[in-house]
Each structure stands twice: as C-alpha cells, then as structure tokens.
C-alpha cells in the first residue's frame, strides 16, 4: 500500500513510517499542511494519515480542500486532543477514521489496513461468506454448514463487521466504535465476552475455527483456508 504521512512532529512521523515500512508499505512523509496537500492532491496514495494540528494549513482545512477537489483518498486523522467534538468535526470535514495520540502501533496499522481496503468495497453483496459460513444481509439469517445460527442483533452486527473485514486484524477499539458506538475505553472486557459468546455460537462444533484472537491486538476472521 502507498501511504502519505502528514505530520509535523518528526519523532511521531518516524515512528509511524518505520512501522508501516516494516509491514511492507511504501511511505512518504510531509511535515506541513501545504506540503501534504501538494503531495496528496495527485490522488496516488491509498491512505493519508493526517495530523489535526499542522503548521500553515491545519488537518481539517487540508482534508476539506482535498475533498472539494474530489480527491477521495481515505483519511485517518491523528490528534492529541481527546476532545469529544473533535472526532465528529474530523469526520464531517471528510475524514474516514480518527485516532487519538498516543496510540499503540497495532491500532494504527489495523485502521490503515481497514481504510486501504475500503475503496473496492462498493460491492453490492447481499450475502457475506467465509469458509462454510453465510450471512444473508437481507433476511438477516446466518447459516453455517447448512445449519441456521440464531444471533442477537448486536452479535449479528459484530459478525458482520468481522466478515466485512475478513482477513484483516480488527482491534478492540475498532469493534467498540463500530458495533456499540462506544467512543471511550471501558475498563471492563466487554469485547472479549461478546467474542467468546459469538464463538460459542459460530465456531463451536464447526471446522475450521473462523474467529481468531490476535494477542495484544484484537481479532481476525479468516477469509481463506489452506
């Protein structure tokens, strides 16, 4: 993937770039809003990582300008502001995701992957599949190996999110935000308990095991099996 990091804090920019390069991505860096806009305007990147606070042109203004110029590259905002309204402002300006500094690198990586994948997702699939699991989005029924699995609405949403991101690691925070709309960090391990319940319905008694735990990061629903 080709990623542009627009960040004025050199230390932070190096931390992100090095990590992404280790994962095999191509990373360019820009250390001001204008410089970033100049590079991003070409539309050749798969993901833009944009700091909210930039010298010259700030992150919000930069993304608004890009979107006005019809550059639709997915944007991940970074911010040190734990502000409650900031996330909404970022999304309204045309950002696609939002991450508050400081963050664990695996969190950033998972989100970059999710964003990078987003573009071809215009698929109008009404059925999501993984191995012998089938999710019908219209009738809201889930089957595995021909047997119907009864899910509660929130469990359905959780499985749907995992299926849509099949093959990618999703973090606890991403699940909290997307499935329950929790934009804070609960102390209780609610994600773990929900996953464990989902597993007991979806994976118990079936082969292969679909929902995998990625230690220290989150979960992964396998898309392909050897």
């Amino acid at each position, binding site marked *: 993937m080709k990623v542009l990091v627009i960040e004025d804090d050199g230390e932070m920019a190096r931390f992100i770039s090095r990590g992404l390069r280790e994962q095999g991505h191509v990373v360019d860096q820009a250390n001001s809003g204008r410089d970033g806009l100049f590079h991003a305007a070409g539309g050749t990147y798969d993901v833009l990582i944009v700091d909210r606070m930039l010298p010259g042109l700030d992150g919000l203004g930069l993304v608004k300008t890009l979107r006005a110029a019809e550059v639709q590259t997915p944007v991940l905002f970074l911010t040190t502001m*734990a*502000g*409650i*309204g900031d996330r*909404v402002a970022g999304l309204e300006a045309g950002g696609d995701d939002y991450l*508050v500094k*400081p963050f664990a690198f695996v969190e950033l990586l998972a989100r970059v992957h999710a964003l990078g994948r987003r573009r071809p997702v215009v698929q109008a699939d009404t059925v999501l599949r993984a191995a012998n699991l089938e999710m019908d989005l219209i009738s809201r029924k889930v089957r595995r190996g021909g047997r119907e699995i009864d899910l*509660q609405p*929130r469990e359905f949403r959780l499985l749907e999110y995992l299926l849509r991101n099949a093959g990618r690691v999703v973090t606890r925070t991403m699940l909290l935000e997307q499935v*329950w*709309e*929790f*934009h*804070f*960090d*609960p*102390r*209780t*391990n*609610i994600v773990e*308990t*929900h996953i*464990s*319940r989902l597993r007991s319905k979806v994976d118990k008694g079936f082969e292969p095991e679909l929902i995998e735990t990625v230690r220290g990061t989150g979960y992964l629903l396998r898309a392909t099996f050897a």
Partner: protein
Amino acid sequence: MPRLPRAARSAGFRFALLHTLVFVALVAVIGLTAEALVTHALKRQARARIESEAAELFTQYRERGPEHLRKLVSARFAMRENRLHYAILGRDGQVATGDPVLAQASRDEAGPGGSVVHEIGRKPYDTMLAAVRPLSDGSLLVAAIDLDSVEDVEDVVSGAFYVVLAMSLALGLGTGLLLSRTLLNRLDAVTRTAEAINAGDLSRRIARTGSGDDFDRLSATLNLMLDRICALMESVRQVSNDVAHDLRTPLARLRQTLEDARRHSGTMADYDAAVAKAMVEADGLLATFSALLRIAQIEAGARRSAFQAVDLTDTIQTVCEAYAPTIEDGGRPFAVALAPGITVEGDRELLTQLFANLLENAIGHTPAGTGIRVELERSDDGRFGHASVSDAGPGIPTPEREKVFRRFYRLEQSRTTPGNGLGLSMAAAIADLHQTRMSLSDNRPGLRVGLDFRLGG
C-alpha cells in the same frame, strides 16, 4: 480645584442638589406669579375705586357748577381720609384747590376732552393712581388714591418668597447631605468588603441590615456570587492537589520499573518484560489524563450546543446489551426494565458513557454474584424520565456519598480494586451537563444511583 467633602462629592448628594435646584426654581416661579397676580388685582381695585370717585365729583360739577366742586374738593382735602387725594388744577397746571401733591398730575396723556388714569409720584413708594378729568373751563379735576397698600402686599409676598426660598434651599441641601451620608455608609460596607477580599481575606462577606431593601438585596446577590467564586476556587485547588497527588504514585512506579530494569535485567526477555510493565503504567497514566481532560471539557459545557434529541431508552438498552455478557458471566442476576420511547435533549456519546460508567462502577465495587438492576421509567406527570442503576452490594456510607463525585475519591474499601477514581466524577459531570442531578441512595442493601432527566416540552 478644592477638594469637596466626600459627602458633597457623592452621587446621592448630587441628586439631592439637582432636586433642590429644581425645587427652588419652582418656588421662584410660583412666588413671582403670585406677586404679579395679587398686584394686578389690587391695582384694578384701586383703579375702579378712583374712577368712580372722579366720576361722582364730575357729576356734582356738571349738576351744580364749578363753585360747588371747589367746595367739595377743599372739604375732602381737609378731611384727608382713606388714602384719597383731591385737587383742581388751573390752566397753568398749578394746584388751584386741594392737595398740592397732585401738581404732578397732568392732562398730557389725555386726549382732548378725554379723561385719563395714570400713576404719579416717586417709585417705588409714594406712588398714587390719579384719575384726571378735564373741566369745561380748561382746568383739571384730579382724584388720586395711594398705592401704599399694593406696595405693602408686594413687600409681604416677596418677603415670604425669599423665606420659603431660603428654607427650601437649606432643607434640600440638608436632606441631600443626610441621604448621601446614609448611602455612602451602605456603599462603604461593600467597598470595605471588596478591599478586604482584594487583600486576600476571601471569607469576608458584606454585612446585611436585614431590611430587604435594594442595598440588602444587592449585598445578598454579591455574597452569593462570592460564595460561588470561593467554591469554584476551592474545587480548582482541590483538583490540582488531587492530580498532583494521584499522578505521583503511578509515575513513581513507572520510574521504579525502569530503574529496576536497568539495574537488574540480564536478558532481553527481562528487558522486554520491564518495557511491557512500563507501558502498562504509562497507558494507565494517559488514560487518567484523558479522563481528566474529558471531565474538564464536559464541565466547560461547550458540548451543550451540539445537543439533539436522543432516544434514551435505546441508548441505555445498547449499553446494557454491551455489558450483559460480562455481568452474567460474573454470575450476577442482571435485570433491565426500560420504558419504551423516552427521548431527551442530549449527547448520545456522553449519555452512553454515563451509563457505561455507572455499570462499571457497580461491577467493579460489588462482589461476584451481586445482582444489578437498570430501570428507566416515565414520571406520572410525564415531565421526567427516572433512570437508575442499582446493585445489592456493600453500598456507600451516607457521609461518603457526596465525596464519591470528587475526582480521584475512593472509598477505603475500594483502594485495592482497579480504577482511577474518575468514573463517578465523569458520570456526575455528564449528568450536570444534561441539567440532571445524580443522586445516591441506599438500595437496602447496596447502592442506587438515580438520575432525573427532564423530558421535552
């Protein structure tokens, strides 16, 4: 410019002075008008009297001849009664018969064959009103009346006017000084208190007279404002103390971990474990900081402008669904009873966090197996939505109940449970933002956290 005494420089005195001047001007206008009216009336009376006198004599002259008139005039002159004067002036203008003072009367102003009434004599005293009638032989009949009485009345009226003027001036200035002295005394109480507060004595308050007048109400309002400022300052002081105190401990632990790793780690695995431990401590600190920032932002109230209609039933339902597996896995009976379709003006994200914090508080501070109950119901009059989260755990002793809303406050029994002591502070801040009071009560046994949401309308 010479310095006036303080009372004379006060606003109260200036008002009184202005009032006095207006009053004096009014008295002057009334006095002058009264004088003019009285003088005019008296002169008219005198004129009528003297005209009729002259007319009567003229009639005598016409009916009984000049000799008779001469006799009458000299007889009346001899009597000198009733401030009246009579004379006949010869053609040469000299007094032929009668009162010599009337020599000043003349016919100059009278038309030929006409009669005239005019004032003669020295002004302002000794003036007379003279009626002059020409006789057929060219001499003049003059009857005159003293205007002394009119002048006397004028003197009395203007004398009275000056007395009243002086009195009202003195009264006005006196009242003004007294009034401004009283006002100054009341204001001085405020000024003295403000000066004492400026000098650092924040506990000073303005003394009240208890009369309930404007000043008393102003003092009460100012005192309330001072109380509020003091409470805010106290809370800021408290928070900074708490922050300094509560962040020291984890920072000290972090430093200790790092130092320990440096001195004792022999292998990469040791270092790795130490770094992992340090990261956990750092994450904890960061979480505490972001919670503090969040509380501060919520308390600042700016979020209120983004309020919109939020389905409270659905919000609480979502939170309960999220926590249900965790709660049930702890062997806790979990009861949720929510009235449908209750909507409030608010911020869904924050309300979600509010109920999540309350549930986490219940989970964190009660032993496994303790039941938790969440309720939402509409009040009988439909104006409030009563929400509550209750548990059957150990509860909070009454004297501690208010304190648990304070940042970092933790009960003695909770010192060892995980948490940063900010959960209930944040919940209270969110409730406050929604103009909802959070109340803690005894669930017999356990704790019941109640929230009264004002519903739309």
